């Protein structure tokens, strides 16, 4: 639940200056270092073009999580890479523009996001997203989305989906779309829920001014599609409701 807005304080000013200044610097450094890093990853690491770009994006996200710690308290409980089946479908609740950056806290980096059209138009980010083989949910039919997502999973790439499809306007968990769960049932790939708390307080939808918040990024136990097969054609609906209930419960837990 997003907190009621308090008048901006001096500390808020410092918080915004450090965060946005740091983010600008981080972005410029990433632009400069991307070409050599890309070449190193391709030539020495044997990465494909997509893998190299996804690795660079992950490093950028991971660096942002360090920046975040400078401005607000952050608790990260995302476990180790061994805790994530490869590949997996990661689903997270969505309150803030910076939720996607939080995925830099994950210990796995070969990830593609399913996003709407507008992020592809963001300067600097758009080209990276295209080269990273992200999926544009607004340009794909249901069948095309599933085909392309299956292709990514078959190549060992994990898929990140915000099942609400958009940022919550009030911090409450919104309606979940079924795509992630249909994909899980179709492929047998497990879903890993990630609970993001405090992001709506930090930067709610429609806002620019960052506020004090206590942020938690927490990995939950994998949810396996086989456990829902008994529901027949409605298996993905049952899985969707189960995962939403898990995230709703996690969001209601008292802050540690």
């Amino acid at each position, binding site marked *: 639940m997003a907190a009621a807005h308090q008048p901006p304080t001096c500390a808020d000013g410092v918080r915004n200056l450090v965060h946005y200044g740091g983010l600008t610097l981080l972005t410029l450094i990433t632009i400069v270092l991307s070409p050599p890093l890309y070449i190193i990853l391709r030539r020495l690491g044997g990465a494909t073009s997509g893998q190299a770009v996804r690795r660079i994006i992950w490093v950028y996200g991971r660096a942002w999580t360090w920046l975040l710690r400078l401005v607000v308290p952050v608790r990260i409980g995302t476990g180790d890479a061994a805790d994530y089946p490869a590949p997996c479908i990661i689903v997270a609740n969505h309150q803030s523009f910076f939720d996607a950056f939080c995925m830099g806290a994950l210990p796995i980096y070969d990830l593609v996001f399913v996003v709407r059209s507008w992020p592809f138009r963001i300067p600097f980010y758009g080209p990276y997203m295209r080269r990273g083989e992200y999926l544009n949910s607004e340009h794909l039919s249901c069948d095309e989305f599933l085909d392309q997502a299956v292709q990514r999973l078959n190549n060992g790439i994990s898929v990140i989906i915000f099942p609400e499809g958009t940022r919550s306007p009030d911090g409450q968990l919104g309606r979940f779309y*079924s795509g992630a769960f249909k994909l899980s049932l179709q492929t047998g790939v497990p879903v890993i829920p990630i609970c993001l708390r405090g992001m709506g307080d930090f930067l709610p939808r429609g806002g620019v001014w960052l506020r004090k918040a206590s942020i938690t990024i927490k990995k939950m136990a994998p949810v396996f599609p086989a456990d829902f097969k008994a529901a027949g054609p*409605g298996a993905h609906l049952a899985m969707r409701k189960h995962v939403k209930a898990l995230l709703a419960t996690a969001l209601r837990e008292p802050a540690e």
Partner: protein
Amino acid sequence: MTDEDIIDRTNAAIAEEFELDAADMTPEASFKDDLGLDSLDAVDMVIVLEQEFGIKIGKDPRIATIKTLADLHAFVIDKKRALES
């Protein structure tokens, strides 16, 4: 089961499944523009209605012509009556 019963149950099932506000469930409401449902939701809607009424919709081509809630009501009533006859 009267037509009114079918309409009420259809609305209740759709509202529950897609977390819609009952106030938005007007006959002229467009699935895409007013209720915000997409093509993947249409697939889910078929499953929900099949389970709710015990009807078989499958890939009925008339599904593609359903644009509003009133269209859906007429379609479900027709399916239900066909099942009963």
